[in-house]
Each structure stands twice: as structure tokens, then as C-alpha cells.
């Protein structure tokens, strides 16, 4: 009698917890009416495209190698990211109506980029770095969509990710987002204009922290170690510390950083290597002012060892 009552209470409690968990992990989106009154500009979107390096992941590999030149504009996806969580497969984001994102509205795209939610209301995995893109001005996101719409449609859908448990439970990303999806700046303090402009570029579309910042065991970024270097997510070795305390970069001036992003050469006249090659080639397409802003921001960071 007592036991059956206890079981009934437990069952109700369990149901309540399940409903609460379901509620807490629901995908949260913004409404079309919340978008600013902004006429999307494809030219502005192209700047965001190179800044964000969209092509570095979404351009279809050519003969197993990363795309170069104009092939960077064919965003059929297909690159595989082999990570400790499993294999992520990069989707088609070309403007193909059926296989890509050609059928998306502006608000669909903003929700994907800044809330990590698909048009059919499911969470995206943070291998798509929306935790960084959440810090972008929403107008830039709208401009980017306008630019993507000008690119050639590519047919072909990409297979789903192959992840291990518990990462395979997509709904769990809702809990993860409650902790790690924040729009607040990573860095604080009174910022001169140039540094603030650099902050928006580095912390937002540039998503530099996704590789240069170490993560905790749930894959969330360690805020107190922002840009202080991390294990290479794609293999052996480390992605360098790019705060003024970094082993190599501590000797570099802001002009050196800007020149490196433009030309691919370090002050010692060694060339950029590894995954940074593709990033640098994208940064070379930005304006000199944008590169100077990125350099000014990096020099203004707290010195971390």
C-alpha cells in the first residue's frame, strides 16, 4: 500500500522532471518581426563571408583536398570533421532550393546562425560555431544570406553526422546551449573604437576562439582562457596562444599581425601553416582597416601564458 503510493509519487515526479527537461531544452528562436528593418546588402555579405571563412568548411573538397580559388564559392559541403565526439559532416549551404538553403527565409538563416536552430526547429550541433556568430550584428547575418544567394546552387545532400552516445541525443544540445550560448562579449573594458571593431570581427563572424580557446569536457569554451591556445581539434599538436602572452606572437607588433593576415608571412618571414593557411587566405580578402582592427584587438587582450 505504502510502496504503491510511493511508486505513484515517483512516477509523477519522474514525469514532471521529464517535462521540465523537455521544456528547458526546447529550441529557442527569434521571430521574423524581431528582425531589424534592414535592406540586405550582398556586398557587405561578401566581407562577412571571407571574415567567417564559410568556405573553409562548406566548400566541397576537390579530389580530397581543400577547394582553392573559385571552387571556394561552391558550397555543396561534404567535408568530414573527425572529432572525439564522432564524425560531423558539413552540410550543403549553397542556394540550391532542395539540397541547400535556397528555400530559407531571412529569419530561418538568422536562427541558424545565431540561435543554432534549423528551420524545422531542431538544434544544430556546435561544430557549426553559432556560439561565436551569436555575437555578430544581426544586419551582418542578413547581408551574408544575401551574398550566399548570389552563389551557384550545388546539388546533393550530405549524409547525417555519426556521433557516439550521449552526443547523438540532439535534444541534449538544448541543455548545452543554456550554459554556453551567450551573446555577451568574451572580453570587457573600455574599448577604443578600433579595438571594439576588432572585437566584433574576432569574437563574432571570425570565430577565432573556436580553435584558439581551450574547452571544458563538455566542449564549452573556457572563458578565462580566451584565445590562450588549445589542443588542435583536427589532430596532433596545439593551436597557438594569440594573446600578447603567446610564445611567438608576444614579439609581434600590431602591424606584424595585420601583415601576417594579409600576406601569410610572419615577422621572421616564415609562412603560415596548417589550418591557418585557409583562414589567412580569407583574411587577405578583408579591408586593411578590418585587419588593423583585428590586430588592435589581439594586442589589447589580457596577457595569458
Amino acid at each position, binding site marked *: 500500500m505504502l510502496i504503491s503510493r510511493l511508486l505513484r509519487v515517483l512516477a509523477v515526479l519522474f514525469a514532471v522532471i521529464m517535462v521540465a527537461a523537455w521544456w528547458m531544452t526546447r529550441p529557442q528562436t527569434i521571430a521574423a518581426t524581431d528582425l531589424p528593418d534592414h535592406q540586405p546588402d550582398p556586398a557587405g555579405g561578401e566581407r562577412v563571408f571571407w571574415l567567417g571563412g564559410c568556405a573553409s568548411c562548406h566548400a566541397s573538397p576537390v579530389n580530397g583536398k581543400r577547394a582553392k580559388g573559385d571552387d571556394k564559392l561552391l558550397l555543396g559541403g561534404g567535408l568530414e570533421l573527425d572529432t572525439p565526439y564522432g564524425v560531423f559532416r558539413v552540410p550543403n549551404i549553397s542556394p540550391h532550393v532542395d539540397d541547400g538553403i535556397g528555400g530559407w527565409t531571412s529569419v530561418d538563416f538568422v536562427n541558424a546562425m545565431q540561435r543554432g536552430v534549423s528551420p524545422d526547429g531542431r538544434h544544430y550541433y556546435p561544430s557549426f560555431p553559432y556560439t561565436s556568430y551569436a555575437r555578430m550584428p544581426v544586419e551582418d547575418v542578413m547581408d551574408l544570406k544575401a551574398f550566399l544567394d548570389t552563389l551557384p546552387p550545388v546539388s546533393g545532400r550530405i549524409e547525417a553526422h555519426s556521433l557516439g552516445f550521449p552526443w547523438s541525443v540532439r535534444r541534449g544540445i538544448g541543455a548545452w546551449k543554456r550554459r554556453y550560448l551567450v551573446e555577451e562579449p568574451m572580453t570587457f573594458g573600455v574599448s577604443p573604437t578600433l579595438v571594439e571593431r576588432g572585437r566584433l570581427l574576432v569574437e563574432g563572424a571570425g570565430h577565432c576562439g573556436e580553435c584558439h580557446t581551450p574547452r571544458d569536457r563538455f566542449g564549452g569554451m573556457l572563458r578565462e582562457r580566451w584565445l590562450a591556445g588549445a589542443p588542435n581539434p583536427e589532430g596532433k*599538436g596545439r593551436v597557438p596562444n594569440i594573446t600578447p602572452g603567446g610564445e611567438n606572437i608576444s614579439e609581434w607588433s600590431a602591424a606584424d599581425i595585420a601583415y601576417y593576415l594579409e600576406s601569410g608571412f610572419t615577422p621572421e618571414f616564415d609562412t603560415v601553416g596548417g589550418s591557418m593557411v585557409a583562414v589567412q587566405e580569407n583574411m587577405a580578402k578583408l579591408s586593411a582597416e578590418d585587419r588593423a582592427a583585428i590586430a588592435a584587438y589581439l594586442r589589447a587582450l589580457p596577457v595569458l601564458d
Partner: protein
Amino acid sequence: MSYLKTRSLIATVALTFTSPLIAGDDPLHERHELMEGVGDAAKPIGQMLKGEQDFDAAVVMTSLKTFDEAAAQFGELFPPGSETGEGTEAAPAIWEDRAGFDKALATWSDAVDAAIAANPQTVEETKTVAGPVFNACKGCHDDYRIEDE
């Protein structure tokens, strides 16, 4: 066996045995030193382009000549058997795709020749001719160098 065939066979055999000698006893060390020298020579040109150093056409030419000499020797310093050791950053692709590597090297060599022929006298002229030279450095490193980190 015809005379020509015999001669080419002898030449092949001779090359096979002498090329490690041409390359010296320690090609890993030599090519590392050569590449360090190229980096040192590139530095003043880069600093002039960045405006960190006054322009000096003679210094630019000295650096270009250093590139030229290095380009002439570099290809011989990757004989079979020198794939690993001494912390080399040479990628396996050099030996797997020797033709591609030689082509990348020729791209650099050609750009250097063109730059020397142009004999740049201003920062702007230097920028124009040094661009292809530096891009060739990058292009080759991208495909034929591994990252030590």
C-alpha cells in the same frame, strides 16, 4: 643495345650513384641551412614593403640573388633516403609527387628570375615583382611542408 640507349643507361646509373654526393653528406642539414638563409634574405624585403625599413634597391637585389642561388641548389637536397630525421618539415608529398614538387620549385625559380630581370628601383616596383616570389614560397609550403606543431 644502341649507342644512345647505352649512354642514357650509363648516365642514369651515374646519376643514381652520384646524386647523393652532389647533395653532400647531410642533405637534411644543408637544406635546412639554405632555407634559413632564404628566410633571412626575405626579411629585409618584407620590412621595406611594410615600411619598417628604408628602401634600398641594392639590398633587394642581394636578397633576390640569394633566392636565385638557393633555387638552383634546392631540388638536389631531397634525395631518396632523406625523408625523415633531424626534425625535418619536408612532407612525404615531395617524394610521392616529385614532379609536382619540381614544378612548385620552378614556379619560385621563374618568379625570382623575373624579379632579377625587372631590377626594381622603388618600393612599388619591388612589391609588384616580389608578390609572385613570396606567393611561390607559400604555395610550396602549403603542399610540401608538414607542421611541426
